[in-house]
């Protein structure tokens, strides 16, 4: 299904599917994790069949997310190396958030903020996976000293919260920058979108 032959392909079908499996896992993990994190959110366990099912399912979903995240990570990591221009972008990000993007440096496929988010998510996934294994009582916790289990529980909570905040920013940025979500839904963006937000990438793919 081609919407406009002039649109630019930003993501392949396989990249989109990879992203959405990871994203769905994240939503399930955030809801089930928050349910077990704060009493006010414990009713969210009902979405998973009750408290016991929430406890059983959460870590398995985590493993699935980690697998798909690793694939996505290696797909996109070469495009996410920070450059001097990216740091310049990050320094000026406040101007853009305030509604003025005229002075923003020209960006490639990803801007400095997207790249920082990418690396933060990489670190968070490693910490969450490792600490998640440590606090996975059914199979692994008994193999670790209690002090390590406690640190695991703390790190898991802290990084999960940071990651939820990071993903809220990620999703909001996609909503705020109009014309972005379609890139992850059907893979294309308009030329104007590309030229405005990722001009270096636009030049690269169009040769203009």
């Amino acid at each position, binding site marked *: 299904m081609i919407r406009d032959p002039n649109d630019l392909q930003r993501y392949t079908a396989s990249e989109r599917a990879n992203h959405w499996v990871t994203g769905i896992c994240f939503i399930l993990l955030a809801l089930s994790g928050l349910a077990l994190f704060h009493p006010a959110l*414990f009713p969210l*366990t009902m979405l998973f069949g009750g408290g016991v099912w929430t406890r059983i399912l959460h870590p398995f979903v985590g493993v699935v997310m980690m697998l798909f995240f690793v694939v996505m990570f290696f797909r996109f990591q070469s495009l996410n190396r920070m450059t001097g221009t990216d740091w310049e972008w990050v320094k000026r990000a406040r101007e853009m958030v305030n509604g003025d993007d005229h002075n923003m440096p020209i960006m490639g496929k990803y801007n400095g903020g997207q790249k920082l988010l990418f690396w933060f998510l990489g670190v968070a996934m490693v910490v969450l996976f490792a600490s998640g294994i440590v606090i996975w009582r059914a199979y692994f916790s008994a193999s670790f000293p209690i002090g390590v289990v406690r640190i695991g529980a703390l790190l898991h909570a802290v990084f999960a919260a940071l990651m939820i905040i990071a993903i809220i920013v990620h999703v909001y940025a996609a909503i705020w920058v109009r014309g972005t979500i379609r890139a992850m839904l059907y893979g294309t963006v308009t030329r104007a979108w590309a030229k405005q937000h990722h001009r270096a990438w636009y030049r690269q793919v169009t040769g203009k």
Partner: protein
Amino acid sequence: MALQSLDIAKRSATTTEPPQARKTLEVAKLIDVSKCIGCKACQVACMQWNDLRDEVGTCAGTYDNPRDMTDQSWTVMRYAEVETDRGLEWLIRKDGCMHCEDPGCLKACPAPGAIIKYTNGIVDFHQENCIGCGYCIAGCPFNVPRISKKDSKAYKCTLCSDRVAVGLEPACVKVCPTGCISFGSKADMQDLAEERVTELKERGFTNAGLYDPAGVGGTHVMYVLNHADQPTLYSGLPANPTIAPTVTLWKSIAKPLAMAGIAAAALGGLFHYVMKGPNEVSKEVEAEVEKELEAEK
């Protein structure tokens, strides 16, 4: 189980006040280690009253049997052979839940009502609400809760809350042949301990004392130790037990901060959109692109 439903002092994963109208007597069990002969009658009585039957284990060359607490063994005798200035001493301690005034298990528990502290001081696990996450194990400073391999629920000594509720002493107290275990109001048990400590001191145990650790707000199972200056001699009884700082950071600091942070991010996004508006592609750029495409044709 959920007896004494009106007499609850604290309930796990619950942010509102428990029913507090009724006041009950604060109880305690006093275990006088200096009177213990290691007969294990308390272990047997615990199994019998609570209908528990642990797997038959193997002998590991000590009297410790079973070797550790399990979901079926809520109390075990621990035998330590220790050289002190009095020569070789056999220090026998009945291990089990200490029923802390400030229970780390309850602080860590994410399941509402899975852990209850009664106003009489007893800390009880309500398995019907337990989700089997094992956070209570991380919260406990005494390494007490055990998760069943069969049902993934956490179990531990109930201080016979069912017996105490109807005015009986715990099963282990009832059966102890040397009077090593006593049960009553916490104040009475403290008085009894004081008398016993004085006796022990007269008999040359100059460091005898009561183990009622302040780090967890005191406990509702207390020990009279003939070497109260070195609790760790008694098979690793912690000298200064407290809820681990990592658990406090996790439950008292990270929890509210994280919730505030997440709420701020979500609301921040909404209000940013409402106040600053969306980031649309500018008409200028759209026109430029149109021109470029025209030129191509």
